[in-house]
C-alpha cells in the first residue's frame, strides 16, 4: 500500500518505537474471546447500565496467568494489566487519571480500536485542541489547569486554525448528541482515556510518555549544545568552499589535465615516477601546491624535506623534528609509546635538552604534567603550539627563501604525452606491478633510521643524500619505459 500515511508530520513530536504495541494488541484481542477471554460484567449507572466492564481483581489476573501459560503471581499479572492500561488498551472507568490496575472492584473497559496507540499516525495537536474545545462547550471552565495551559498554548500556536477547531468541536458535539445516552457516555470515557494517555497531566506515568519525558531531556540538552556550538555564516563557509575549489581546480587530475599523462588512461607511469615521495626534482605543480598552505607543505614528504633543509640553514630545525616526533608518537604502536615519549622529552623538552624547543610556560607545564602518565595525545598541546609557530613564522620566510626559489626554478614541467593507438597498446602490454608495499615500508624505515642517525647534520650531507636517492629511484622505472 503506497498511501501516504504520515500527513504533514514534520517530525516535531517524538514518537517512541514500540514493538510491544503489536504484542499487546494480540493479548487484548484474545481477551475478547467470549469463551476463553476475560469475564465481563455490566457497569451500573443511575439511569442505565453499560456492559463490558472488567474488574482488576482475580478474573483478569486469572485470565492473564492462564493465557500466557506462565506461572504468574497476582502482582505480576497486575503489573501486566497496568502496562496495558498505561499503553491505552484498557482504561479505568473511575479514577481515570491513574493509569494502573487496582486489586479491587474498580472497573475498567476496553478501548475502542480507533483510539488504540499506534506509531503510524502521530497524535495530532489539532485533535487535542478540538477535544479541549468540546469539553469547554459542554461545561465552561471544566478544563483543568494543565489542560487550560495547553489550550492557551495551542490557541497561540495554531491560531490560524482556530475558527476551524471551534467549529469542528461544535459539530462533533452535535453529532455525539445524536447517539443514545449510554453510547455517548462510553464514547466520552473513551476519548477522555485516550487523551489521558497521550497528553498526560504532569507526573502521570503513561506508556507513551515515559520515553517521551526522557527524550525531552535529551532534546533540551541537544538544543543547548547546538545553541552553544560555534557557528559560521553560510556566506563565509561557502566563500571558503569556493576559494578551495578555485585553488585546487588546476591540480585535480579529474578536472584538469594530468601531466604528462594519466597513468590509468595511458598505462604510462611517468606521472607516478615524477611524483614519488622522495624524488629529487619535484614537478612544478607539486611545488605550487606547497604554497597553498602549510599543511600541504608538511604532508608532502618532498616538501617537508625542502622545509627541513631551509630550517637547518636557519638553525631552527628542532621545531620540525619535534613535530615529527609527536606525529610518530601519535601514529606509532602502543608498545613503543612510553619510550618514544621519554625520548622526546629528553631531546626537546627537558631543561638543558640538546634540541630544546621554545614553548610558553603554561603549555610546558601541562605537557610535563601529562608526561607522568604518557598516552598517545599527551604532546598534543605542545605540538599544536609548535605547528602554529612554524606556520606563522618559518613558513612565510621559507616561501621567500633562496632554498625554495631554487627548488622552484629546478622544478620540471613535463610535456604532455601524445600516444598513438599502437603506442597505447604497447604500454598496456608493458604494464608491470609496482613495488610491494612491504618493500616500500622497509625502505621508508631505513631512510628514517639514516636520518635519525645523521641528525642534526649540516647541509652538504643532506644535499648529497638527496641526490643519491634521486639517482636510485628512476633507473628501476626507465628500464620499463625503454622497452
Amino acid at each position: 500500500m503506497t498511501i501516504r500515511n504520515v500527513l504533514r508530520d514534520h517530525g516535531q513530536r517524538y514518537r517512541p518505537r514500540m514493538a510491544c504495541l503489536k504484542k499487546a494488541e494480540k493479548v487484548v484481542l484474545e481477551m475478547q474471546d467470549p469463551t476463553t477471554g476475560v469475564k465481563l460484567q455490566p457497569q451500573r449507572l443511575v439511569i442505565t447500565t453499560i456492559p463490558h466492564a472488567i474488574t482488576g481483581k482475580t478474573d483478569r489476573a486469572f485470565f492473564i496467568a492462564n493465557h500466557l501459560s506462565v506461572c504468574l503471581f497476582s502482582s505480576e499479572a497486575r503489573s501486566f494489566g497496568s502496562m496495558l492500561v498505561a499503553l491505552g488498551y484498557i482504561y479505568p472507568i473511575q479514577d481515570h487519571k491513574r493509569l494502573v490496575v487496582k486489586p479491587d472492584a474498580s472497573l475498567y473497559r476496553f478501548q475502542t480500536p480507533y483510539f488504540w496507540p499506534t506509531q503510524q499516525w502521530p497524535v495530532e495537536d489539532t485533535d487535542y485542541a478540538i477535544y479541549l474545545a468540546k469539553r469547554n462547550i459542554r461545561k465552561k471552565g471544566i478544563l483543568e489547569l494543565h489542560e487550560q495551559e495547553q489550550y492557551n498554548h495551542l490557541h497561540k500556536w495554531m491560531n490560524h486554525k482556530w475558527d476551524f477547531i471551534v467549529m469542528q468541536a461544535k459539530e462533533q458535539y452535535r453529532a455525539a448528541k445524536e447517539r443514545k445516552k449510554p453510547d455517548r457516555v462510553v464514547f466520552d470515557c473513551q476519548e477522555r482515556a485516550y487523551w489521558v494517555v497521550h497528553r498526560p497531566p504532569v507526573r502521570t506515568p503513561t506508556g507513551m510518555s515515559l520515553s517521551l519525558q526522557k527524550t525531552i531531556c535529551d532534546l533540551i540538552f541537544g538544543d543547548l549544545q547546538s545553541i552553544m556550538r560555534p557557528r559560521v555564516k553560510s556566506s563565509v563557509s561557502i566563500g571558503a568552499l569556493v576559494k578551495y575549489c578555485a585553488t585546487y581546480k588546476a591540480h585535480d587530475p579529474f578536472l584538469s589535465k594530468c601531466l604528462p599523462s594519466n597513468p590509468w588512461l595511458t598505462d604510462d607511469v611517468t606521472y607516478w615516477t615524477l611524483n614519488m615521495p622522495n624524488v629529487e626534482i619535484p614537478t612544478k605543480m607539486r611545488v605550487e601546491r606547497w604554497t597553498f598552505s602549510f599543511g600541504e607543505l608538511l604532508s608532502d614528504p618532498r616538501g617537508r624535506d625542502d622545509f627541513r633543509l631551509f630550517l637547518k640553514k636557519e638553525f631552527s630545525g628542532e621545531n620540525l623534528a619535534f613535530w615529527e616526533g609527536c606525529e610518530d608518537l601519535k601514529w606509532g604502536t602502543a608498545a613503543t609509546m612510553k619510550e618514544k615519549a621519554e625520548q622526546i622529552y629528553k631531546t626537546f623538552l627537558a631543561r638543558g635538552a640538546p634540541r630544546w624547543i621554545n614553548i610558553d610556560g603554561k603549555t610546558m607545564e601541562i605537557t610535563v604534567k601529562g608526561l607522568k602518565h604518557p598516552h598517545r595525545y599527551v604532546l598534543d598541546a605542545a605540538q599544536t603550539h609548535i605547528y602554529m609557530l612554524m606556520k606563522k613564522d618559518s613558513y612565510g620566510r621559507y616561501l621567500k627563501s633562496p632554498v625554495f626559489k631554487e627548488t622552484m626554478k629546478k622544478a620540471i614541467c613535463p610535456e604532455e604525452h601524445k600516444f598513438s593507438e599502437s603506442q597505447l597498446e604497447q604500454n598496456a602490454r608493458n604494464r608491470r606491478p609496482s613495488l610491494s608495499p612491504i618493500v616500500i615500508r622497509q625502505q621508508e624505515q631505513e631512510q628514517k633510521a639514516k636520518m635519525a642517525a645523521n641528525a642534526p647534520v649540516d647541509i652538504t650531507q643532506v644535499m648529497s643524500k638527496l641526490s643519491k636517492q634521486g639517482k636510485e629511484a628512476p633507473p628501476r622505472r626507465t628500464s620499463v619505459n625503454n622497452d
Partner: protein
Amino acid sequence: KTKDKCQFLCVVACYRHLASCAGGCTDSLQLRDELRQTREKALTLAEAICRHLTSHLRDKTLPEDQRKEMELLWVAFTSSLELLHVDMCKVFNIGDTFSLTNTASLVQTGLQGGGSEVAARALSLADLNQEPPTLPAGLESQEQRAMEQEISQIDHMIDDMEKKVNVLRWMVEPRGPQYADPLSSTESASFALVSVDEEQPGHEPLFQRSFIFVLLLLLAVVLS
C-alpha cells in the same frame, strides 16, 4: 459556500464518530456501509469545495476582503480534509485487523447502539431506513480496495491544492473567540445528567442532589 463548508465539517465530525465504533462490538456490515456512504458524501462535498476555492483563490482580481474570507475557508477546509484523511486511514487499518467474519475478536467496548443516527445526520436524511446488507463473498476486500482508492484521491486533492494555491497559513486570522460558547443550557444539562459519573467519581450524595436539582429545573421550565 459557507453552507457547504458547514455541511462538510458536519460530515467529517460524523465520520469520526462512526470510525470510533469500528472494530468494536457494534461493528457490523451496517456500520461499514454507513461509513462508506458518509465517506462518499464527504468526497463529493470535498471535490465541490475544492474546485470552488481553488478557482477563486487563483483569481488574481479578487478583492482583498473576499480573499481573506476565502483564505479562512481554505484553512478550515484543508484542516478538515486532513482530519478526514487520518480517519479514513485509521478505518482502513481497522478493517484490515478486524474482519467482520470473525466477530469473536471484536473488542467489547461497551457500546450498544450502532452509528445509524450519526450517519443519518451526516447524510442529512431523516433517518436511515435500510436493511442491513447481506455479505456476498469478497465484499470486504472490495471495500478495502475502494477505500484505498478514496484515500489516495484525498491525498491527491491535498497535494493539488497545495501546489495550485499558495495560502500563507500563518497570515490567516481567525474571527471567532478562543473559547467556544457553550451551547444552550438545556442541552448541556441533559448531557450533564449522564456524564456526572465521570466528573465526580464516587460522590454519590452530591450526584443525587444535582440530579434532583436538574429535574426541578426542567420541571420549572416546562411549567412556565
